């Protein structure tokens, strides 16, 4: 078994990197040997980099699928609102808008989802208009997003593309949007260990009351080092899990999922999508999509059918992962509640009362 991420202490590190511009570079990447990152996959996707944002290129399917991810997230938030159960952690910058959720996008690639989500973060200013609540917030209610990917090439592609949109570029500059070139394991390590000053409480479903004495949310309290939950309200994992190697003792989708869950704040969502290992998916993804030109749309070797994940497996891993994370004290009240349907694709385990909902991706976006 790979060493489990141990959650040693509450840290308050997250505010710091977010308030500065691009603190991370490629240094910390790929060095860790217990990484979930497959070297083959890394090489393959880095070679796709130049065509990542080409609307007619091999990533066209991902581009067309992307709006559906927003719909899916909006659906999840409508089903269970993280805000109503537990007050959210303060956002890194005092947000005048009503978007409060902090996002982590794991395996962001060239940034197709991350950039689109960043676009839904309202711009700074406009704080004068204090018209209220729900009408003013966007569907995904994103206040910030951190996107990670182990490939330095792809992160560069993502950053370069983000610069082509002044609104997104502004988010990059003021820190609410951040690309980090690191693996999930690296992120966990930096998130949970870098703080030496450990604070008291362990995570629990009831939000740990902030030790800061002043209850008033004055703007200055944002800049002070108030210990906050460094974990995220929403962790997204789109089209990633099918690229995780399953090598006994080294890396498995199960441990990877468990790591993802450890980044979810209690009451938050882990939202993802993947491809099921079914006959249609073999036909479509292996035979048709990777066929030679002019039929095929993606290069050979993009997918490995054997790595595809079925809903039952996924559900098992999530339950297992939640139990283990709970053992680590990260998530209490992990009442595993089964709700699996036979289906492919989209699943939404929720930390703290997990429910895995699987939806058939009858995907018929305009090709």
């Amino acid at each position, binding site marked *: 078994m790979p060493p489990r991420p141990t959650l040693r202490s509450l840290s308050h590190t997250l505010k710091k990197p977010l308030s500065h511009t691009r603190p991370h570079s490629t240094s910390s990447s790929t060095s860790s040997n217990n990484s979930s990152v497959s070297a083959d996959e890394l090489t393959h996707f880095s070679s796709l980099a130049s065509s990542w944002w080409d*609307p*007619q290129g091999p990533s066209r399917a991902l581009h067309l699928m992307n*709006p559906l991810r927003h719909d899916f997230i909006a659906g999840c938030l409508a089903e269970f609102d993280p805000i109503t159960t537990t007050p959210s952690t303060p956002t890194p910058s005092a947000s005048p808008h009503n978007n409060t959720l902090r996002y982590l996008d794991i395996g962001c690639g060239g940034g197709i989802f991350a950039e*689109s989500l960043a*676009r839904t973060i309202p711009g700074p200013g406009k704080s004068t208009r204090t018209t209220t609540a729900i009408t003013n917030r966007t569907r995904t209610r994103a206040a910030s997003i951190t996107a990670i990917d182990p490939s330095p090439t792809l992160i560069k592609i993502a950053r370069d593309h983000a610069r082509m949109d002044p609104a997104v570029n502004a988010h990059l500059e003021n820190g609410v949007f951040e690309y980090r070139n690191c693996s999930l394991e690296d992120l966990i390590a930096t998130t949970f260990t870098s703080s030496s000053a450990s604070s008291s409480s362990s995570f629990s479903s009831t939000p740990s009351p902030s030790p800061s004495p002043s209850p008033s949310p004055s703007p200055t309290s944002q800049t002070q080092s108030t210990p906050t939950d460094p974990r995220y309200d929403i962790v997204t994992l789109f089209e990633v899990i099918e690229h995780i190697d399953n090598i006994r003792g080294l890396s498995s989708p199960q441990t990877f999922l468990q790591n993802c869950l450890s980044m979810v704040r209690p009451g938050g969502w882990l939202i993802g999508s993947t491809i099921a290992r079914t006959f249609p998916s073999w036909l479509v993804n292996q035979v048709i999509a990777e066929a030679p030109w002019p039929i095929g749309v993606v290069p050979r070797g993009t997918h490995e059918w054997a790595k595809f994940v079925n809903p039952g497996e996924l559900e098992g891993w999530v339950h297992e992962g939640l139990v283990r994370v709970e053992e680590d004290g990260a998530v209490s009240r992990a009442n595993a509640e089964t709700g699996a349907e036979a289906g492919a694709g989209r699943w939404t385990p929720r930390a703290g009362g997990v429910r895995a909902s699987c939806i058939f991706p009858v995907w018929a976006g305009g*090709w």
Partner: protein
Amino acid sequence: MRPLSRTALRPYVCPSCQLGRLPVRRRFASHSPSSSNSSPPEIYDVVCVGGGPAGLGLLAALRASPATSKLKVALVETQDLAKARSWSLDSQQFSNRVSSLTPSSVSFLKKIGAWDYLDTARAQPYQEMQVWDGETGSRISFDWSMETSPFEDLRPVATMTENTNLVRALLSRIAASGDDNLSIFSNTTVSSITNGTESPNGPDLSAWPVLSISPTAAAAASSQPPTRIAARLLVGADGINSPVRRFADISTDGWDYNRHGIVATLSLADLDPVPFPLGTRTAYQRFLPSLGGPIALLPLPNNHATLVWSTTVENAAYLKSLSPKAFLAMVNAAFRLSMTDLQYMLRMDRPATVSDAEDPHENELAWRLEHTPQPPHLPPTVTGVQEGSVASFPLRFRHATSYVSPRVALVGDAAHVIHPLAGQGLNLGMGDVASLAETISYAVNHGMDVGDLLTLERYAGDRYATNAKIGGACDVLHKLYNVPGNGPVAWARSLGLEVIDRVPFVKGLLMKNAEG
């Protein structure tokens, strides 16, 4: 799974063409390009060039939808929009630029809240349309009676509205939305459109259109330097010679019909049998194959009507040169006399002096009417023509090869110009605008870049085939009804018309298609 055939039918993506098209030089400049790259341009989400019904409709739709009302939008228009906003005319006078709005255009205008600002006393719905062939006499009538119970009012086929009235309503609607994030550059021309530049530390605007705009010569009291604005999405609503289309390097297919449309505002005699139910109004269109196109009389309030007569350039010049009396005689004749009679009357000598008493065209009409059997359902006699309202415009067919390019979308006449015989031109523009506004709203809600090709291809995919179909249908009708004489073509088209008129299913289908 979606059928693979749709891939082949997709009109807007031919990957190889697309790739070939993207890196072309994008530049439009009517003057020398200004090299004032010193200050960064002001950035807008949507910049619309052209303040006609399409451009204003888009702006009003964006302002009306909650998702898009916070977008930073700009409109650039050469004309004085303040003048258009304060337009007013006596209730017995009508502008000669009148459009028929289909029910779907009307419901779009209602949806965006512009209809409330329209002076509906100046708009005239009509419930019935009579169309007949001047050569063979075969006839078709359109109304919604087959779908209406006897106790309901007939649904209008379309509503006649002056373009000025519509523009004023849209401007009022936009003004009512407040001026947050809204810039209207009236009396302003686009002097150049270029791609932006990459600033070393800031955003990279090298794929963004940047417009240099300056006040028109008429309005330039002070010669201020041109303003530069960058557009996330540049919308070309700038008409048939669209500068935006030239910037995007999109070509058009099409031809000139070598015909002119004559318009005029006319007043009518009272209709002899009072229409039942009261207030039912009828539009009339008679195809005149030997004269180059149809003549149409479309109702306006207070017993007025607007004329659209598509005919050859020579006939148009002749008609425009006639005295009002003779012009009226020709209009009445065109709905009543045979092709041979009309051709004769269009070659009559014009009297050197206009005499009040006797007009040769009037006399000729009166004499010839005595010898021509008259069909039922004739339009009321035209009795007066509003002074200065007779005008003409060339008829053309144009269709842009693409409606979109990265950060550019074309709407209305910039994308397509069609024959006016079905009164669909403005309605296609409204359909474009409704679709584009919908697309932008979807994009905003899903974190898409509104100028991205992936966003815009939704719009193009929605509209291209529809517009091609309607434009093509009008073109076919024009050609079919330009074959003179009683040959096989005339026989076949008359048979077709009779069949359509008698088979409710086909007619209903046709009307639903025309309705949009």
